[in-house]
């Protein structure tokens, strides 16, 4: 069996991380070109091969499609550099910056154990470097999601791990008024939908991710919604109403009040 071009590219790249779904590499298409990020959806051996091949193909293609749609409508997402759906490889722009999870209280636990106390002071310092307060950051999250939902893209896996802050030196805009750029990443579970329901569930997924990762996050998430509401405009009441419904839907939830 011959080795495909994508496989070859992966071999010459630097492994960065292994997420739940994919291995991530830093690669160069040509020696002089700027780095790109390769996302390789490797074969999951626990899954039936047939199921796996179908899922990989549809997820890579779907991911590329969603990112393109976002790019065209001004949502901050990484640019697309290459797509190979059969091999499960997606090449996107390399973003200099940091994952939001690590910038928020409680998110910096890296060993799964509970050591929240000593990171609080650190967070604010890093955020200062990006020129943004926590409140502004929350609003930015809401705005980006609203922009994405406006073009009917549903992210499907909104967590603070899937958001990044660009370093000031690599902004896409040259407007001096722009002090921060929040980038949405990982569209692996995204899909297109015009339904209020899907948008509400998207927000609900993020709310739950906030609650489970960043303790006492309720006031934070309220600010996310405020930013979202502002940008969404007329559609907000309907989405808010649906979000309230979705919250009641999880199992074994108390039905009081």
């Amino acid at each position, binding site marked *: 069996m011959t080795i495909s071009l994508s496989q070859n590219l992966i071999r010459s790249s630097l492994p960065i991380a292994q997420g739940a779904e994919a291995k991530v590499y830093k690669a160069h298409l040509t020696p002089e070109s700027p780095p790109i990020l390769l996302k390789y959806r490797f074969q999951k051996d626990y899954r039936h091969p047939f199921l796996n091949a179908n899922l990989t193909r549809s997820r890579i293609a779907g991911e590329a499609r969603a990112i393109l749609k976002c790019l065209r409508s001004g949502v901050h997402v990484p640019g697309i550099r290459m797509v190979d759906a059969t091999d499960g490889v997606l090449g996107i722009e390399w973003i200099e910056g940091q994952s939001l999870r690590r910038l928020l209280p409680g998110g910096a636990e890296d*060993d799964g154990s*509970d050591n929240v106390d000593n990171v609080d002071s650190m967070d604010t310092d890093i955020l200062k470097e990006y020129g943004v307060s926590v409140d502004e950051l929350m609003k930015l999250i809401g705005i980006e999601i609203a922009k994405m939902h406006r073009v009917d893209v549903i992210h499907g896996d909104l967590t603070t791990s899937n958001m990044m802050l660009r370093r000031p030196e690599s902004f896409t805009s040259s407007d001096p008024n722009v002090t921060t750029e929040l980038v949405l990443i990982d569209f692996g579970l995204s899909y297109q939908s015009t339904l209020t329901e899907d948008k509400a569930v998207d927000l609900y997924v993020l709310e739950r991710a906030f609650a489970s990762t960043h*303790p006492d996050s309720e006031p934070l998430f309220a600010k996310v919604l405020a930013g979202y509401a502002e940008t969404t405009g007329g559609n907000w009441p309907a989405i808010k109403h649906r979000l309230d419904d979705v919250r009641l839907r999880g199992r074994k939830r108390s039905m009081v009040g």
Partner: protein
Amino acid sequence: MPGKTRKTPLKDADRDYLALGLEGSANKLGAGIMKHSKDGAAIVLSNIRHTYITPPGEGFQPRDTALHHREWALKVINDCLTKAGVSMHEIDCICFTKGPGMGAPLQSVALIARTLSLLFSKPLVGVNHCVGHIEMGREITGAQNPVVLYVSGGNTQVIAYSRQCYRIFGETLDIAVGNCLDRFARIINLSNDPSPGYNIEQEAKKGNRLLSLPYATKGMDISLSGILSAAETYTLDKRFRAQGATGDEDTITPQDLCFSLQETVFAMLVEITERAMAHIGSKEVLIVGGVGSNERLQQMMGIMAQERQARVFATDERFCIDNGIMIAQAGLLSYRMGYETPLAKTTCTQRFRTDEVHVAWRA
């Protein structure tokens, strides 16, 4: 364990402690006696269970299940005490399932617990069923701080511990995975003995054709009801042969459907578990709940864990499937932290989320 581990708030036992655990939130009635001895060991003295089994094609109704529990309570508890070789007078506390579960069976067992408590003047401890599963799994396997996949007939949750609370990372948005499998077993008329899930597992071993079913993960949540409907639709397909393979090429057998259902649903479960592990950076995964005794699920989880240099902890049917000892274990932990449920508060509730419990005994 890397990183800082805080000192556990649970003090060493100053003497031996004995707890009787009573469980009856679904169709299993269980009684078990747990001993926490002075040297720190937790010993299972006895673990007796009786299951209410309904005919093929039928589920268990709350009223009949409650009746079963009432009829079997004396025998199960007596057997449990005899096997353990202790008398009721030596017990420190009586632990019972407060919820979640079916109302009528829960009430029957709570009533039994109250009666015993008044007869022998023993304190009562109400226990969250899900926390019982987690604590028993941790005790048996020795997993320190795992991501927990709790899969049973009534619950499907991905849980991780943080700040004295078992937080739910992902869960089913509609029906539980065990419910999905059980109901499919009913559709194809599989026996409920020893359990519908077990029989599906055996049938799935004979299937080899993967039929396409919806694959519904939403972030860390999953949805299962559509998959059940899709699987049921296949049984109405003209290619479906209820009696199994006939040698024809293009047929769909119940075995194929069991196989496809398991492969699809378990892949979704493993996927959300892996996502939770990646999200919090954990290297341990613990499977609890009745569906957790499915060997194919354990195998798939094992492959996933191996890929990410993590470890899987699973228990066998004695501790996976609902039992009394897990209630005794979780109850005794909170009893040793000074927690008792006063008689007036020994009500049950069908809705009692895992994250509502204050996990006082962990750092």
